[in-house]
């Protein structure tokens, strides 16, 4: 009798934990929204929501690629440097036409992805080290190409950065479209299934005859290309190329969004909805602290605490 009661209690506890793990991030977003609506003056305005959404767009786009990398039991630390590289390439090639520059910038990001993926898939280097090397080298390369900040005076770029359809900024529309696309890829395509299988167990995937190397390289190409797109969009918004500071600490924000969103670091599972909510959560947290005149340093501490809590919650679930 008591055993049964205890078992029921444990099951309850487990259910609560699983619920928190899966939906905690949405809960967090809801709580922050309610708190802000109640306490922050001028929070509830279309203008404010637009600003927040535009700021979250680049982080979200990078986080989508990061979610794929983490789903394959990897990680991509080079994303911030890829953003810097894409902004440098964009500035260099703007003379040949905006669209050519955009394509070159994204191809540059994909090329870094190929380098990352090859180190990981063919040579067997751990993802954290391979992407660390390209994080250092990529930022250097960006600065070699464009040593300092350069204004971007280009009408197409300007409208990309500040334009909107029906009041929704292009940046937000692009981020939403990419999120849907990545969610579709993960759920409905062979590549998505293979990626999850590889993240679950690479030896098993290899024994099952999956093209492990090709899939891994493609994962990092996606991550690189998405980071480059984020870099291009951030450049359009800032109307300047700044390879020194663009994308600094972006790998942290992206990993936080993914992990807080319920994607386990152990791979085999990707939650795109959670990643979107995770990115929104970080943005809201930052905005809340700033709007209440708390110094930016508190944001970093808060973000650190949120990361640890999220991973801790995931651990509780994984242990059972």
């Amino acid at each position, binding site marked *: 009798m008591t055993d049964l009661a205890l078992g029921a209690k444990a099951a309850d506890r487990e259910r609560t934990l699983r619920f928190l793990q899966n939906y905690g991030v949405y809960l967090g977003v809801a709580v922050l929204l309610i708190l802000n609506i109640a306490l922050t003056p001028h929070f509830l305005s279309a203008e404010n929501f637009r600003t927040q959404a535009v700021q979250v767009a680049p982080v979200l786009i990078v986080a989508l690629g990061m979610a794929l990398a983490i789903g394959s039991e990897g990680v991509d630390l080079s994303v911030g440097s890829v953003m810097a590289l894409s902004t440098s390439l964009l500035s260099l090639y703007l003379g040949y036409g905006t669209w050519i520059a955009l394509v070159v910038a994204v191809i540059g990001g994909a090329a870094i992805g190929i380098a990352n993926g090859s180190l990981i898939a063919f040579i067997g280097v751990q993802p954290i080290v391979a992407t660390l*090397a390209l994080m250092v080298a990529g930022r250097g390369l960006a600065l070699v190409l464009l040593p300092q900040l350069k204004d971007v005076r280009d009408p197409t770029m300007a409208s990309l950065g500040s334009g909107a359809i029906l009041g929704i900024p292009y940046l937000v529309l692009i981020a939403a479209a990419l999120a849907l696309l990545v969610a579709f890829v993960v759920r409905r395509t062979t590549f998505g299934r293979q990626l999850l299988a590889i993240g679950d167990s690479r030896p098993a995937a290899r024994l099952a005859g999956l093209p492990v190397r090709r899939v891994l390289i493609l994962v990092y190409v996606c991550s690189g290309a998405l980071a480059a797109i984020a870099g291009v969009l951030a450049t359009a918004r800032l109307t300047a190329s700044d390879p020194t500071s663009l994308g600094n600490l972006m790998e942290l924000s992206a990993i936080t969004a993914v992990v807080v969103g319920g994607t386990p*670091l152990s791979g085999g599972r990707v939650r795109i909805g959670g990643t979107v909510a995770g990115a929104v959560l970080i943005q809201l947290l930052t905005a809340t602290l700033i709007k209440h005149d708390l110094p930016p*340093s508190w944001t970093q501490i808060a973000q650190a605490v949120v990361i640890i809590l999220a991973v801790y919650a995931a651990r509780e679930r994984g242990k059972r």
Partner: protein
Amino acid sequence: MKKPEDEPTGPTRSERLSALAQQHGALVTLLVAVTAASLSFDTFLTGDNLENMAVSSAFLAVVALGMTFVIITGGIDLSVGSLFALGGVLAAWGSQYGTAVALLLPLAVCGLIGLVNGLLIARSRLAPFIVTLAAMLGARGILLSITDEGSKTYLVDKDSFFATLGQGKVLGVGAPVWITLALFVAGAVVLRRSRFGQYVYAVGGNEDAAALMGAPVARTKVTVYTLSGLCAGLAGALNAAWLVSGVTILGSGMELEAISAVVIGGTLLTGGFGFISGSLVGVLLLKVIQNVINQIGSLDSAYQQVVSGAFLALVVIAQTWLGRRRRVL
């Protein structure tokens, strides 16, 4: 422990060669680099340049010392750069109350953060990279909030004993260099001769086997992350004494440099295999490369990053290749 001489069948010739390359590759590369640099630049082998390189290597070397222990257990510590900066600022602030405070305060705070890292990793079984990533962010946040968002710089009194620790010279060589050498000797003795050192190798070699043999796995891990935090804090304090101020912007990217140095020095990122002396050689090699790039002059620091990144990739490729060959044969 993956030391080749421990294998029961005895190493084959190519196994011995790859082990040799792993152990002494960095040293040979360093000697070649130094020879090439001194032949190419008259300014390389001057007392001032060497002294400058030695002192600036010292701080990174202390950080790399702690990192070596962490990596041999199969972990990683990304928080060292932030802890280095935090240690420096705390030391500079504390130096107004005397040298003891200037040294103990950063050690206490950074050691505590390292301890928390270790507890979360060892007891709660969270991934080392994510825990120390959070610590990197959190420590940087603490640093910014005690310096008015990085705008306030604490200065060290130039005549204090604490400043002497950074700026003083013994036998013509800077005090930080001597302190670093002493720490490395102590570190090597601990790793090679103490029971704790054996546990460090055992945990990195095979955690489950180590636990079955009765090694205190969790305690060993907690200790190495605490040690890494202490080393980073001490390096920051010594750096503050050398610069006679606590500079808030230091240390970003330092975790990469330290990891690179350790890996270049022959320590395997998969754990279980590595040397303290190798990390020192790795640090010197990185600094010689930086120095050469500076000497070329027309090449700016951006190239330094490209070269360091490419170098790290090359070393890791070589390591993986050598390691794979040894496993296959």
